[in-house]
């Protein structure tokens, strides 16, 4: 089904996307910055307001749809990808956003995330990763560090965390990126690129929960250290970082190492970023980088094209209709094997023998 909207797209402003609901996060929560980046980005996409649909699960993050003046559905815990998939299948013209938290997406919702990604539904998934369950007041999540002391782990968590990007890569995602709540411009840019990608887009947003996990992203979120702790991924550019742009990454066997150099004369064998590298190993390798051994990569890790689920779904119907003709009630009821009973009670086969 395709919906039409008035032909001309009105020029929209940030405030056109602000809803009348009061925002209910704790003062200082990173979610505010994400909302701001989102509201700032939406008008730049050239999409009418009514064609956005924001689907969320449950959690602090999942309150997001209430604050955006588009279609919004605050569903149940972990299931946003399923509802979004149904909606997107029903109407591929919509721009569908999935807003989720680390618990929502990777704890209860891990399976739906996997399948949404591998199906390549053309939806945009923004995972607010604060490495904690915020809404339920502070238990460890699947992204919490081992040893994390929380309400439910007074002696520290004993589980190894899952890396959301690595999970997305293994789930055959076609767009995988990372950004952070403390960098408005980068967030906005990443959100825009995610939306532009035709296919599923998976974005991890490093988010601070000031109440239950304050400072969890400290090395990267603090402006003054960020240049040393992160490396920004840019297409076809060598991987260079550092306050003075004096460090870079170089392949070493099946892996990479940091090299330092004079910024004037960067070495020629630095690793060059390619989101569409023929092998997914490049991106997968980047997901393994963690501070302090390596800088944490920020940006788009991978972006490749594959037919989307909803396109293929509609395409099969189109082909079936083309081949068999559009079905109607009569053909539906009759099927392929009927017989007539005439007034005398005699029976006559109508069709080919049923084999």
């Amino acid at each position, binding site marked *: *089904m395709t*919906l039409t*909207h*008035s032909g001309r797209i009105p020029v929209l402003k940030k405030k056109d996307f602000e809803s009348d*609901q009061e925002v209910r996060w704790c003062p200082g929560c990173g979610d505010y910055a994400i909302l701001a980046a989102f509201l700032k980005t939406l008008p730049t996409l050239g999409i*009418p307001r*009514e064609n*956005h649909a924001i689907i969320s699960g*449950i959690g602090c993050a999942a309150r997001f*749809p*209430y604050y955006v*003046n588009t*279609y*919004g*559905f*605050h*569903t*149940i815990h972990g*299931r946003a990808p*399923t*509802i*979004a*998939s*149904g*909606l*997107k*299948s*029903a*109407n591929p*013209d*919509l721009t569908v956003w999935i807003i989720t938290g680390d618990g929502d997406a990777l704890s209860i919702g891990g*399976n*739906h995330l*996997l*399948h949404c990604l591998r199906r390549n539904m053309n939806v945009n998934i923004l995972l607010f990763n604060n490495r904690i369950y915020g809404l339920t007041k502070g238990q460890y999540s699947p992204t919490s560090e081992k040893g994390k002391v929380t309400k439910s782990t007074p002696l520290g968590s004993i589980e190894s965390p899952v890396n959301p990007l690595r999970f997305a890569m293994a789930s055959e995602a076609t767009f995988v990126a990372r950004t952070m709540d403390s960098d408005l411009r980068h967030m906005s840019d990443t959100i825009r690129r995610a939306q532009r990608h035709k296919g599923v887009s998976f974005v991890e947003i490093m988010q601070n929960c000031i109440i239950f996990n304050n400072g969890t992203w400290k090395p990267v979120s603090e402006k003054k250290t960020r240049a040393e702790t992160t490396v920004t991924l840019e297409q076809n550019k060598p991987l260079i970082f550092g306050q003075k742009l004096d460090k870079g990454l170089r392949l070493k066997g099946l892996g990479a190492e940091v090299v330092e150099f004079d910024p004037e004369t960067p070495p020629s064998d630095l690793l060059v970023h390619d989101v569409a590298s023929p092998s997914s190993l490049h991106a997968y390798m980047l997901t393994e980088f963690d501070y302090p051994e390596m800088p944490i990569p920020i940006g788009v890790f991978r972006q490749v094209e594959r037919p989307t689920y909803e396109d293929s*779904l*509609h395409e099969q*119907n189109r082909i*079936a*209709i083309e081949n068999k*003709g559009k*079905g109607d*009630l*009569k053909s*539906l*009821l*009759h*099927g392929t*094997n*009927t*017989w*007539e*009973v005439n*007034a005398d*009670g*005699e*029976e006559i*086969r109508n069709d080919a*023998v049923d*084999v």
Partner: protein
Amino acid sequence: MVKTVESRQSIVIRFAGDSGDGMQLTGNRFTDASALFGNDVSTFPDYPAEIRAPAGTLPGVSGFQVNFSSLDIRTPGDAPDVLVAMNPAALKVNIKDLKRGGIVIVNKDTFTGPNLKKAGYDGNPLDDASLDNYQLHSIPITTLNSNAVRDIPDLNRAFINRSCNLFALGVTFWLFDRPIDSTVKWIEQKFKKFPAVVAQNLKALKTGFYYAETAEMFPSQYVVEPAKIQPGTYREITGNEATAIGLVAASLLADTQLFYGSYPITPASDVLHHLSKYKNYNVMTFQAEDEIAAVGVTIGAAYGGLIAATGTSGPGLALKGEALGLAVMTELPMVVVNVQRGGPSTGLPTKTEQSDLLQAFFGRNGECPMVIIAPKSPIDCFHAAIDAVRIAVKYMVPVLYLSDGYLANGMEPWCLPEIEDLPKIPVTHRTDPNEYFPYIRDTETLARPWAIPGTPGLEHRIGGLEKAEITGNVSYDPDNHQKMCLIRQEKIDRVANDIEDLEIRGAEEGDVLLLTWGGTYGACLSACLQLHEEGHSVGHAHLRWLNPFPKNLEAVLRKFKTVIVPELNLGQLNMLIRARFLIDTVPFNKVKGKPFMIAEVKEKVLEVLGGGK
């Protein structure tokens, strides 16, 4: 020997053998011949457990039952008059069901040591007195078949025994005076690429037929005259297929695309399989990663404005409970098909039961009422699916559709309805932004507007938190919560304005009423009519809608001294009726993975009439 011919109104024959013995095929051929002969026919397969069992064992037995009649048949599942058992295990499993004095045809050659042991027989039942109550016909089918076919040129000798089933079919064709030509034609077509196979099968069929004619083993032939069948166009249909076609029909009548989200599960998978073939009807099927996802995508599609349905069986319905709460809270229209099977837990997955009624009512957190409809026959699956969609979109509610394994696999000839008799289903997606509120309601139905994403000016937010009455905003207001709980209940109650009154068959009032729901309809109606004809004051009423109940239900119940509630569970509807009307109803329960037999229902009624135990 003079050939005697006895005339019968209706016969039930069951073919039983090992999973590999081709019993489904045999049954289908017999059905086809009978339908073309002009009988009313109704069939029911009885599959073994979900996975293949070793040849010759009890769990490996597969059955196919055909009820053919000169009258209108209401149940394929009644006690058989004739049992064809291809091995000892098939005999063991099925003999208990046979009517006293019924005919047993066995393949004598298989009643040997290892087979008997696998079936758990100590001795040979063909030799002891255990079958004395039946008319036993013991035929060395393996030998006869092999003798008949072994000289066919190019015959694959490994497959020589594969035509034993056609030999047996030939025997039954003679016994019931069925013409064999439609089967001959079918064999020729089906195996046309393999002339040796055609030759083998034809030879077996005919040899069986002539053997029965000449062997003088049957004292008489039985004739079931053609039924007075209403003129029209017919097809055969199973319940699952009818459910699928009903949903597609509803989508055409609503002029809105159908979306079906499902995760395979016995006995509901066939609904998905059928629907996935209707792509040229613009049907979208979505095989989800599990049942939760299946209902999730369905909610999404409903939110997107489609005729949305999801289908599963008991364990899957349990998984969907939480998400169905969201559907109730957000008041989105959809149909939730549940094809019941034996429980609890994995239970008896290939067997039928009616034990999900209370789960359908109450299997969700909070006060979370849903409309519930249950088809009463394979054909009614078609109409019930349309009714479910009609109510869902009119009232903006999810509707639970309770089929069962018996209906799902049961097959009937279906006199196709006239297209004009199928009323359109009006669907409105709101577009007018004036005075739009997400939870503003239609005064008659209390339906909220169906405003779908993509519609300019109607942007709004919904979700699982309690909603403020009209705006739909999140509300923690105590009074609002109570009000909304009552409104959600009231919506369901008002559906009673839109459903048919309960009809009484048999006695209009008097001693006993049989109150049924779902797939037990046929057997119980037949029992009622037979008893009524025999002079008893017995009526029958059948609930297609379980929630809400029809408005005249109480009045109907009060017309009878005693109400019996037969169910394939431990008394679920019975409990609801007692609670609602404070009537001391009599439960009649069976939890054996099998449908009611007419005779056992009659017996129960007579017991109650006699004031017995």
